[in-house]
């Protein structure tokens, strides 16, 4: 029986929590993952940076398998992999000749095997460890700190605007609205997000009203009708994909389509931990299907027998529906996201 402080126990506990959805929400998952890896890096033994990369990748695979729909986990892992690669530059060289999974450059077919000498002057693992852990600490602070995001966002809200938001579950947006309310007065329309967000919408509206923000709850079906008097649509997705599209809780696509129809801007708020290296090539696999009992009442025996119900928890919104994506480093057009993603991640880590 292993001790409680053992890293393996912690990993197992975390995977179990992910599987049972005891930890949910991108920010919570991102933070928990970062803390876990911090302990992982400091407690595991790894002679070289390559070993560390492999070990972290293995951990990443495990976590991704535990909860394939929660991309924040993989995002954090990839961020840290990138940081290991940056800290120890020799790593990149060694991997350049490794073409088993994917070539790293167009020169791939020309470079002669064995010509890239395996550099031996790796950083000493202790220095590397310290540097990586420092990076992780910076990352953890970044995840927790949404101040830059709010600063950029505040500039985009004007007095007396009517803002529609279809994501009552977002902590990021709630904090943002509360912050902006100190400087501006505006109206927030919250869509109900039936069937998965009805309770949250009520709570969200309640919190905003308490802070003195004029708030209304709208049924999802009325979105198109009110869109003409809305000045902005603000959403906070679960994940921002590399093509600038987003995966968001179900019920968000409709307001964004309506906004497109009325030429109203759609603003996306996403902490940098939501940026993903993935492309939406297989949308079906990225979308989780939730509780059917929320759509029809389980007690309704006849209906249950005769109807088959699917309750997808997410929507995919293509980049063409969005106008600006505001992350911790400022606002970017959706088509530019691939560049931001490349800055944050190394393409070698696309598949863990």
């Amino acid at each position, binding site marked *: 029986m292993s001790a409680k402080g053992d890293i393996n126990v912690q990993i197992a506990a975390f995977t179990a929590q992910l599987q049972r959805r005891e930890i949910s929400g991108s920010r919570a998952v991102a933070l928990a993952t970062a803390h876990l890896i911090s302990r992982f890096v400091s407690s595991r033994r790894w002679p070289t940076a390559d070993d560390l990369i492999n070990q972290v990748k293995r951990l990443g695979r495990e976590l991704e398998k535990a909860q394939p729909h929660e991309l924040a986990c993989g995002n954090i892992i990839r961020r840290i992999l990138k940081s290991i690669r940056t800290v120890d530059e020799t790593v990149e060289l060694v991997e350049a000749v490794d073409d088993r999974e994917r070539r790293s*450059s*167009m*020169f791939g077919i020309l470079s002669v*095997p064995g010509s890239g000498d395996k550099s031996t002057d790796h950083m000493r693992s202790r220095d590397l460890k310290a540097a990586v852990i420092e990076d992780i600490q910076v990352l953890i602070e970044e995840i927790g700190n949404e101040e830059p995001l709010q600063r950029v966002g505040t500039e985009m809200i004007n007095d007396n605007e009517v803002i529609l938001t279809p994501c009552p579950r977002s902590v990021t947006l709630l904090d943002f609205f509360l912050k902006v309310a100190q400087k501006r007065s505006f109206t927030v329309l919250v869509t109900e997000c039936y069937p998965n967000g009805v309770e949250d919408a009520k709570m969200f509206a309640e919190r905003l009203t308490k802070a003195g923000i004029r708030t209304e709850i709208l049924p999802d079906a009325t979105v198109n009708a009110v869109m003409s008097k809305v000045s902005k649509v603000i959403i906070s997705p679960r994940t921002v994909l590399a093509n600038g599209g987003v995966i968001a809780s179900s019920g968000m696509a409709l307001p964004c389509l309506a906004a497109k129809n009325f030429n109203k801007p759609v603003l996306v708020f996403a902490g940098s931990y939501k940026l993903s290296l993935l492309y939406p*090539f297989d949308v079906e696999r990225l979308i989780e299907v939730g509780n059917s009992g929320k759509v029809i009442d389980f007690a309704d025996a006849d209906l249950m027998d005769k109807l088959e119900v699917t309750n997808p928890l997410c929507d995919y919104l293509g980049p063409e529906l969005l106008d600006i994506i505001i992350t911790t480093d400022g606002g970017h057009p959706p088509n530019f996201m691939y560049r931001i993603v*490349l800055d944050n991640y190394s393409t070698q880590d696309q598949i863990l």
Partner: protein
Amino acid sequence: MDDDMPFDIKQTYLKFLEEDPQLTMPVAAIQSLVALLADAQPKTSAELIEVLQEASQTLKDSVPNSISLSAGSDLFLRFVVRNIHDYSDWEACKRNLVENGRTFAERAKESRSLIARLGLPFVRDNDIILVHGRSRAVHQLLELAASKHVRFQVYVTEARVCAEGQIAAAAFRKLGIPTCMIPDSSVGYVIPKVHKVFLGAEGVAESGGVINQIGSSQVVMLAHQFKKPVFVLAESHKFVRLFPLSSDDLTTETPYTFTTTETEEFDPANGPQIDFTPHKYITALITDLGVLTPSGVSEELIKIWFG
């Protein structure tokens, strides 16, 4: 190669292509240039580059459809230029290249199996796939998918002019893939039923647009209209530093001509053999560098030309 004869780059190129049907044009070009290196004995690095540039130009000029080929020769030239200074003695570099001449072809083939592996997740159960023309990369991907027991069906267009659709369809059927052959004119009829489109490429332009067998662009545009994803399978050595805006910009032979008199019998083979598909219609490129969006192509080109 006959020792008495002067080295003919075009003949060497054609010979390579003939010997190995699996060989692609850019790789044949690279191999021809390597063969030239072995034959010519340049004394300085400047001379070496000059010889290569000259030969590469000759080759481009002598072959009618030179885009694909130029991707290979440009890549090779760039590689030599980039590395010639890294090596303490450029002779060693040359020797290395010549000795490994054969392995390039092997590794180019490996690229295709890499693409197949990377593309496998895109072929899913119950998919209906539209394939235009014949492409070795597409063939390899579908072969892998079928061997992994993915259940899918394929529409293959006839791809007139090159008329390679029949060969492709026969090959798919041989793999046990339910295949349906359609004339090019009925793409609009089947496209609503299709889930995704797979294409090969002769060359990939800097914008991420694709140069491919004629007919590709209309298939892709129809797919775009029906919001069906289009995936292009191309090895990264087909990336070429060109920025065509339309099919007109491709340096191809005989365009169609207008006449008022009945000319000799209508022969489509007289027209252009390739066309250009702009990047905005392409969902993704599946390459040996990974799955890229069209904009990723310029990233990769920048990496080797300006990196």
